[in-house]
């Protein structure tokens, strides 16, 4: 079992676009990875629904864990991704509502 702890850098936390990019990267790595908040139960990091439902805010630590071949390399890559502000290029789109 390999584990890494990283602080989520995205301004909106692990929601919306950052959550989407993260789970896509987990799926692309081909390694089963779990993600947990401090003291929380680990959940499937490849599931956007589980990742979003953690509700990780900006600046909070998460722990990634994986097993077996390629686990080290996969986690290194995912840690680097979470340490980046994934929401930096384009801010969340503003809705067209009005009243």
């Amino acid at each position, binding site marked *: 079992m390999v584990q890494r702890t990283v602080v989520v850098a995205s301004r909106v936390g692990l929601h919306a676009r950052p959550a989407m990019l993260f789970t896509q990267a987990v799926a692309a790595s081909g390694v089963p990875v779990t993600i947990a908040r401090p003291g929380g139960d680990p959940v499937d990091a490849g599931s*956007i629904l589980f990742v*979003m439902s953690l509700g990780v805010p900006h600046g909070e630590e998460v722990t990634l864990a994986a097993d077996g071949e390629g686990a080290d390399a996969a986690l290194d890559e995912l840690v680097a991704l979470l340490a980046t502000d994934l929401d930096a290029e384009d801010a969340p*789109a503003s809705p067209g509502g009005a009243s």
Partner: protein
Amino acid sequence: MTAPTAHTVEQRVLHGVGVGRRGIVGPVAQVQPAPHVPADAPLLVDGVPADAQTTRKVVDRAFTDVADGLRDQSSRATGTVKDVLAATAQMADDKALRSQVLAKIAAGEPVVAAVDGVVQMFATMFEQAGGYLAERVTDLRSVRDRVVARALGLPAPGVPELHRPSVVVARDLAPADTAALDLANVLAIVTELGGPTGHTAIIAGQLGLPCVVRVGGATALADGTEVAVDAAAGTVTTDPDAAQRADLDRRAGVEQALTADTAPGGTADGRPVQLLANIGTAEDAERVAVGAVEGVGLFRTEVLFLERATAPDEEDQAAVYARTLKALGGRKVVVRTLDAGADKPLAFATQPDEENPALGVRGYRLVRTHPELLETQLAALGRAQSQAEATPWVMAPMIATAAEARAFAARARAHGIAKVGVMIEVPAAALRAGEILAEVDFVSLGTNDLAQYAMATDRLRGELADLLDPWQPAVLDLVDATARAGVQAHKPVGVCGESASDPVLALVLVGLGVTSLSMSAGAVPAVRYALRHHTAAQCHTMAAAALAAESAVAARQAVVDLLVPDVRETLGV
């Protein structure tokens, strides 16, 4: 649009409340409601209940098909719609969602119960997390509805993909549904619920689409039925005959003729009346700037703040304001500071547990609990002013007293903003408009809220629309009091509520002394036309007639009777 054909189908006329005056003929495209299926509905293949293995395959396939379909729609969409659809596609593709549903089915649970159980588990987690996530429950449920419909072979719920120009018919349209509309193929919008100042109506007004709301029986119309949607009459007529089509065609011709006049607004004898547009975003500003408007009379800045966990910072806001000012290239731009609360809650500013939010801490009153929101906004506007080298006007919503107006003006002027005003939408402010005008440079009447507060009628209660009518003489009295104060103080009094977009009512407003009218850009041509054909004295006579009437209906009729006959004919009133 198909050519009229001889048929024996009996015409049916459905009645509702029209938004605007446009009309059009086109085929119905029903927005499918979520399928109502019992939790233990069997999955049938060739008419017989499928075995467990086949059921799993069909459901697995349904998830894939729904995700593919959403991705495909996303790839053809742009902007916000593209992102919303892509995120929903990823939910449908979620491997945890799918594997847990399939595991339940393998354990013998019926399809609908299995999907509902897993979706409910995620929905509960989202709701517990609150905020942004709680709002995503709608997307999650729409995935649920689509997968269930697909697996059981029912029509796909939600806004259909439009393959030809169509009249979109729905029970009600949620903001997300409206966002998913393929506007190039939307001819008109018809809903069974909603009110004339609701979300759907306002969006339709901004887009210049014919719209009729509160149409009983609309969702029973068959897909593809040809209907004539007439917003002026508030009707939806099935299988319109040649005469009805010709009438709508004629009015479309008039509409084109109206748009031909692009000169600044004014009465027949040359009294100027500024005709301005209402906008919500910098993109709106760029869109209206190419049209014949003299500026923006209402920039609703709350759109910048909606669906965000925290307020946008000064720099982000300044960029949007500067872009808006640049788009209008020196024309007048009236920026309204954040109008949150009541029907527009914000995660970071709304008071929880307000029993009566329309009467609570909303609009300018947020300064009592969150003064930093207003400070940041005014600082951003001051910064945008130097970036764009243009001078914005700024106004605060929901001002009730002269002291509030004075405090707001002091804050705004401290940030270098030269033209400071307030909204008049609280009856108390209308009654004391003279004192308020002594503190500020201009006022702008928000007639929707003014009517809501004067008539004690919730804007969101469609069934009370008659009380909310801006033609109510009591509401006109408050407009009159405000306009008189403006004339006396030699300061501008605008109207930026939807009432400014009614060309007949616009004549009354001008007759009362209003100096500018701000509305959906699509409504400007008809208002300009009506003004151009009446003198200031005629407008004044009409205003007096409206004030003398004993009801909203009588007030409007009295004014319609005074219209120049040509105008009555052209506007179809």
